[in-house]
Structures are given as structure tokens and as C-alpha cells.
């Protein structure tokens, strides 16, 4: 057989050395092809492995149903606080701040953590989300100055977090709403606030300033996640876009309940929604009432959630049912997105969404426990 092979090699005009070189080259080419093909999925997965494990570790420490039931069964808000002090996640913040503020700080810390560990490709939207505490702080400052709170009372409302952390003290020392806007000159929020300032001066209400901030935040969030080039970014875009749509919908529903028309609502709406594009939003804003908004949403993914609670709205006349339904929808949708890419962005979205719900639920429980004889069954109904 050796002779046969030798004859074959020489019949194609190769010496033994060139045959050897040919074999080495063939191995190298095949190897290169195999490595290129197999490394592509690895390169997609690799950046997410460490962040996924970190968020899943924290997800595992979220409250389960039994713990939430135990919290609901507590007798008063002090018991809630003591219970939370026994949980490592909340112990530190509760040592430093009162309950409600501690929950806000914990939420801000959660967004900071996710923005820190998120892979580079998807970091931007989470960095924007981590600045939500800035928006909340500016809103608190505006409200505090509108009602004439002093520096110390104002400081109590602020979340010690975000990019304005170093300036919070000096901002709390200001005296008027206009001073706040002037003091924020040079920050990324200045343009949005200055544009809305004339409207504030005209109406003497901070609502236009708050809405301008919300619009700025949502716009930045949506733009930070555009160009969904791969599956992870597509999931992120859906997640962020749904939040923008839900914020727009809540605003339109509440405005219609208050009897506002298109011209009054339009300035506060972020036109470039996700599934609800500009033309659809215009239709909704022009709807005569809340019932027509819900029917106008037919064919969109938000229709079912809102239609289901329509009878409750007809009975109570409260748009809070729609807001709760939209929050529930956002939570369920985030959960479905979380399971789509287990070795990608899924665990990050799952954790954020569940932690957000946990903090909302804790706030509901704390608020209910401050009221005497608030029935536990009612609290359970209110939980997300």
C-alpha cells in the first residue's frame, strides 16, 4: 500500500516534501475555517457570561412569594422595616435612610449596578436608565421649590445617586424653581428645562418642566437603543420601546380623563414611539375620550391588557386601572423577553424587571401598613 501511495504522490508530480507541505496547508485551511465558523457564536455569547452570572445571583436573592406574603402579614410599617433589615440587599440602605428613601436608593443602586456590568454593546440604554434618579431628583427639587420647602426638607426628598450627586446639596439650597433651572445650566437637562421654562412662568405650574424632563429621558432612552443589529439589541429595543409606548399611553389616557385636547397633550408626548408611531399617537390624542383610546389601540399589543380592565374602568371611572394593567403588561412582556436569550441579554432584563416590581411591591406594602386596618387581601390585590 505504501508503494501505491508513493506512486499516487509522484503521479501528481509531488515529491514527499511537497506532499507534506500540502498536508500541513490543508490542515491549516480546514482549521481556519472551523475556527472562524465555531468562534462566531462564542464571540456573541462571551461578553454576556460574566454579567449574566452576576445578575442571576442577585435575581436568586429577590423575594419569593412566601417572603412577600410574610411582609404582607406584618402588623405595621416598623415590622416591614425590621424584616427588610434582615435582608442583606436592604440592610445597608435602611441603616442610612428611612424606608421609602432607602427603597429609592436601592432602585438607583440596581440601575447603577446593571449599567456597570452590562456588556459594551448594550451598555448605553442602561446608562440612560441609571440616570432616572437624576430625573426623579430634579422633579423633587422642582416640586419642593414650588411648594416652598426649605433646604433640609428638600434634601430629605432627594435620592443620593446619579450624575447630579455632587450638586444635590447646592441645588437644595436654591430658593425658586427658576433658580433650579438656572443652576442646572451646563448639565444635559438644561436645554429641555430652559425650553419649558416660559411655559412654567406663564402657568406657574411645574408640570411643563416635569413633562419636558420625562420627554427628554424617554427620547434619550429610545435613541440609545436604536439600530437593533443583533438579537440581543432587538430584545433591548423591544424592552425600551415598550417602556416608551407605555409612558406615552399613560400620559394620553390621563390627559383624556382630564378632558385635554390634542394641542394640550402633543407637546408632552414623545412622537417617535416604538409600536405606537407618530400617526397612531396623533389618532389617540385626537380621540374624544378614554374608551375611544382603548378601542383605537385594537391591533396593537397593548389592546388586550387595556380591554380586559375596561369593565372595571366603566364601573369605577378611575384610569388607575389602565395604569396598573399597563404596568402588568410591561412586567409580563419583560418576563417573556427575559427567557428569549438565556446566554445574552435575557437575564439582565429579567433581573431589572423583577427588581423594579419588588421595589414597587415593597412601596405598596409600606404605604398600606402606614394606614390603620388596611386589609391584607387588598394589599395582595394591589401587588404587581
Amino acid at each position, binding site marked *: 500500500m505504501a508503494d501505491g501511495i508513493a506512486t499516487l504522490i509522484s503521479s501528481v508530480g509531488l515529491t514527499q516534501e511537497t506532499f507534506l507541505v500540502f498536508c500541513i496547508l490543508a490542515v491549516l485551511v480546514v482549521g481556519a475555517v472551523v475556527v472562524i465558523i465555531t468562534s462566531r457564536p462564542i464571540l456573541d455569547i462571551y461578553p454576556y457570561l460574566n454579567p449574566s*452570572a*452576576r445578575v442571576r445571583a442577585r435575581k436568586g436573592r429577590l423575594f419569593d412569594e412566601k417572603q412577600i406574603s410574610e411582609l404582607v402579614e406584618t402588623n405595621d410599617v416598623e415590622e416591614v422595616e425590621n424584616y427588610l433589615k434582615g435582608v442583606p440587599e436592604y440592610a445597608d440602605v435602611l441603616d442610612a435612610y428611612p424606608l421609602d428613601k432607602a427603597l429609592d436608593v436601592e432602585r438607583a443602586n440596581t440601575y447603577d449596578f446593571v449599567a456597570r456590568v452590562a456588556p459594551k454593546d448594550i451598555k448605553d440604554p442602561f446608562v440612560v436608565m441609571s440616570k432616572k434618579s437624576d430625573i426623579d431628583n430634579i422633579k423633587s427639587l422642582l416640586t419642593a421649590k414650588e411648594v416652598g420647602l426649605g433646604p433640609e426638607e428638600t434634601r430629605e426628598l432627594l435620592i443620593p445617586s446619579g450624575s447630579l450627586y455632587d450638586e444635590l446639596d447646592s441645588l437644595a439650597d436654591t430658593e425658586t424653581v427658576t433658580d433650579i433651572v438656572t443652576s442646572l445650566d451646563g448639565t444635559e437637562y438644561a436645554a429641555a428645562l430652559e425650553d419649558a421654562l416660559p411655559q412654567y412662568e406663564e402657568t406657574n405650574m411645574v408640570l411643563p418642566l416635569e413633562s419636558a424632563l420625562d420627554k427628554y429621558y424617554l427620547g434619550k432612552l429610545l435613541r440609545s437603543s436604536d439600530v437593533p443589529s443583533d438579537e440581543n439589541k432587538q430584545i433591548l429595543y423591544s424592552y425600551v420601546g415598550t417602556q416608551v409606548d407605555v409612558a406615552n399611553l399613560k400620559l394620553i389616557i390621563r390627559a383624556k380623563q382630564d378632558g385635554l385636547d390634542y394641542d394640550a397633550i402633543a407637546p408632552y408626548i414623545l412622537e417617535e414611539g416604538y409600536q405606537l408611531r407618530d400617526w397612531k399617537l396623533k389618532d389617540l390624542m385626537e380621540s374624544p375620550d378614554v374608551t375611544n383610546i382603548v378601542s383605537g389601540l385594537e391591533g396593537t399589543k397593548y389592546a388586550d391588557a387595556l380591554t380586559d380592565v375596561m369593565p372595571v374602568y366603566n364601573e369605577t371611572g378611575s384610569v388607575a386601572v389602565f395604569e396598573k394593567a399597563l404596568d402588568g403588561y410591561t412586567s409580563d412582556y419583560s418576563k417573556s423577553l427575559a427567557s428569549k436569550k438565556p446566554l445574552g441579554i435575557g437575564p439582565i432584563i429579567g433581573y431589572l424587571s423583577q427588581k423594579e416590581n419588588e421595589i414597587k411591591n415593597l412601596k405598596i406594602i409600606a404605604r398600606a401598613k402606614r394606614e390603620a386596618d388596611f386589609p391584607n387581601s387588598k394589599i395582595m390585590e394591589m401587588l404587581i
Partner: protein
Amino acid sequence: MVEIALGTALAAIGAGVAIGFAGLGSGLGQGMAAAGSVGAVAEDNDMFARGIIFSALPETQAIYGFLVAILLLVFSGLLGGGQGLPTEAGIVAIGVGASIGFAGLGSGMGQGMAAASSVGAIVEDNDMFARGIIFSALPETQAIYGFLIAILLMVFGGILG
């Protein structure tokens, strides 16, 4: 220059393929498992031991490749003591290397992904340990097939005989 028979030279390529590709798969897999484990340990110190176990799982593919490569080097006479391999046995040796090399590559990568995912599941829920090990061990089978075929090729291809 040392005179090496064509068959021995081909066996050397086979040995390179065996440990090269198996090592690549093992390295990628171990890297993935270790990346997940580091993340888990950063959040929970108790995960260190379990993280090490899952990170070590994709090591086996490199061991198979290393064993096959050593056998090829020894029995081809490249490490001395033999007469060198005939050409046809040298070609069989490339098949031996490809068998464990490519099987080890796929198996290592698959095991790395499963191990990284398992570490994430365990750090979220401790009870997942046993199931995580089972799922992570599954991709080992491909490397075992590759290793068996490599041994059979060496035995019946005139290398170990």
C-alpha cells in the same frame, strides 16, 4: 537535519491536530465557564468551589487530545526508539488527530456554554447543582466518541500494533 520518514511526519501533523483543536475547544469552553464562574463568585463567595468544578469540566477534551498526541508521537518513533511509521499509517494518524481534535473542539465549546449557563442557574438557585452537572456532562460524549475512534484507528491502522 534529522531524517524523518513521511509517515512519521504525517503522524506529527496528526498529533498537532489532536492537541491543537482539542485544546482550542477546551480553552474556549473553559474560558466561558470561568467567565460565568467569576461573575457568580463576585456576587456569592460560596460559589468558588462549584465554579471551579464547572470551570474544570471542559478540561477533559484537552486531556484526550494530549493523550492521543503523546501516543502518536511515541508510536511514530518521533520521540526516538522506533523505526518510524510507513506512509499509510501516517495518513491514518492524521485521521486520528482529526477525530479527537474536532470532536474535542465541539465538545469543549458546548460544555463551556452549558457549564457557564449552569453556574448562572446555580447561583440563582442552589438546588440546580446536580442538574447543572448532568447537563454540562452531556457534551462530553462527543469527545469520548472522538477519543474512542482515535484509539480504534491507532490500534487497527497499524500505529499501536
